[in-house]
């Protein structure tokens, strides 16, 4: 099952702006790109050609794994606004 299929089972109330703000300059020199590997929602995708980290923040499960795993500790991370983000019914 793809991650998109899994995520389609979750209720979200997406915000219009991202609560996840990577420092793209630091991302360029990051070797591990570990955010892509730890994220349980596939939020992060490194676009090699554009040299840019794509952040699908609206899929975020607000776990905080990326914040802690980020090698350069440069990821701006905060909770979405009170009315926004993920809503688990069966957590």
């Amino acid at each position, binding site marked *: *099952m793809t*991650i998109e*299929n*899994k*995520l389609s*089972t*979750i209720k979200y*109330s997406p915000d219009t702006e991202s609560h996840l703000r990577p420092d793209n300059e630091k991302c360029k020199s990051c070797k*591990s790109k*570990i955010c*892509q*590997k*730890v*994220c*349980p*929602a*596939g939020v992060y995708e490194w676009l090699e050609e554009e040299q840019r980290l794509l952040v699908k923040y609206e899929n975020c*499960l*607000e*776990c*905080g*794994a990326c*914040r*802690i*795993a980020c090698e350069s*500790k440069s990821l701006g991370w*905060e*909770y*979405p*606004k*009170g*009315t926004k*983000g*993920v*809503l*688990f*019914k*069966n*957590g």
Partner: protein
Amino acid sequence: MSDIREQNKTEVIVVGGGPAGIACAVTIARAGHEVILIERGRFAGSKNVFGGAIYTQPTREIFPEFEKTAPLERKNIEHKYAILGKDDSTIISYRKKHEDPVSYSVIRGKFDRWMAEEAKKEGVILVEETVVRELIVENETVIGVKTELENYYANIVILADGVNSLLAKQIGLRETIEPKDVAISVKEVLKLDKEKINDRFNIADDEGCIYELFGGPMLGKLGLGFIYTNKDTITIGLGITLDEFGEDDSRPPYELLDNLKSHPSIAPLIKDSELLEYSAHLIPEGGYKKIPTLCGAGVMIVGDAAMLVNNLHWEGTNLAMISGKIAGETAVVALSKGDFSENSLIRYQNELEKTFIIKDLKTYKDLMDVMHAQKTSYLDYYLRKINSFFEMFTSVNSKPKRELYWNFIKNYFKEKNPKEILKDFGYAVKLLWGILIK
């Protein structure tokens, strides 16, 4: 400014509507004090995720009659410890129909919401859909919280804001969390007919079964899996420490979960089920050595925010509730004295140290270090070895048994050099010593 302070001033603010925050707030409200519980989700429980069971005795300490009205799924009567090889498994199981069940499976979206509603009935002021962005600190004392909309002031602020506790970090009560000190847990709640659940897990309608899964896709990694039975759903998931994702070929957590689901010993249990909801959360794994400073002037930290999880025994919500209760009692004592200094709130830490919470975390203080050092051995080699022993033991191949035993023993000494064997036993002794003696 002072007008707003007066208007928005209460006795205690608790940040976070999980088991720790709710237990804390209700304890304070019962003593007749004004307490505001701030929850960032739409309702308490809507941002919360766990494996699957709450514990009866500690929950009764907070809500003595919870079993009468709380939304409970099943009372657990069986624990299965399954050691998964690549394609085989060895399972140890303990089953007992307790008169008084040790634990119940619950759904947090229902159970936490129920607890919060109960707390409201007892006088807690619940403010939902509100994120506390930072703590207001004056003269090195926490005097309130800044939310998106307005500031609230209080004599005491209690941080029950979960594993990420950005607030504890803001005021320097704890260091930056390292990847090895938390696990990412992913889980799926799967819809399945009640009758099928009962048949497959050998349980009656209201009975539950817990699987604790070692190995499988987590072989050689600091990770464990779990299965819980709910009324008409099954919960399956796994947790792996974040430092396990650094390898080039490491796969994301949801793929590991897919691998677990397709393991030949697991797949039949969840066959024909339908994914109802996927979720993820971090689990504090740092243990005793990573407990933050538990209090400061005007502030205390409880539950996951204080790293209070006993991972070996799958205990977290109970540590959360009891730490919340003790912090609540401490707040009540402090309010009666009118003293909110660190010297006054240190009572929380002192009382916590007398309980099973700090004692247990101390007992297992070396566990994670040993497991990190020994994971290729304890969490890979020996797990596979247990399975290969039973494969040998159950084989019928017209070979004499003594030959089979000696082959097994010879293989062990072929696969492990004396130094490794010494190390394996040395660490095991160190761990046991730490658990039983000091």
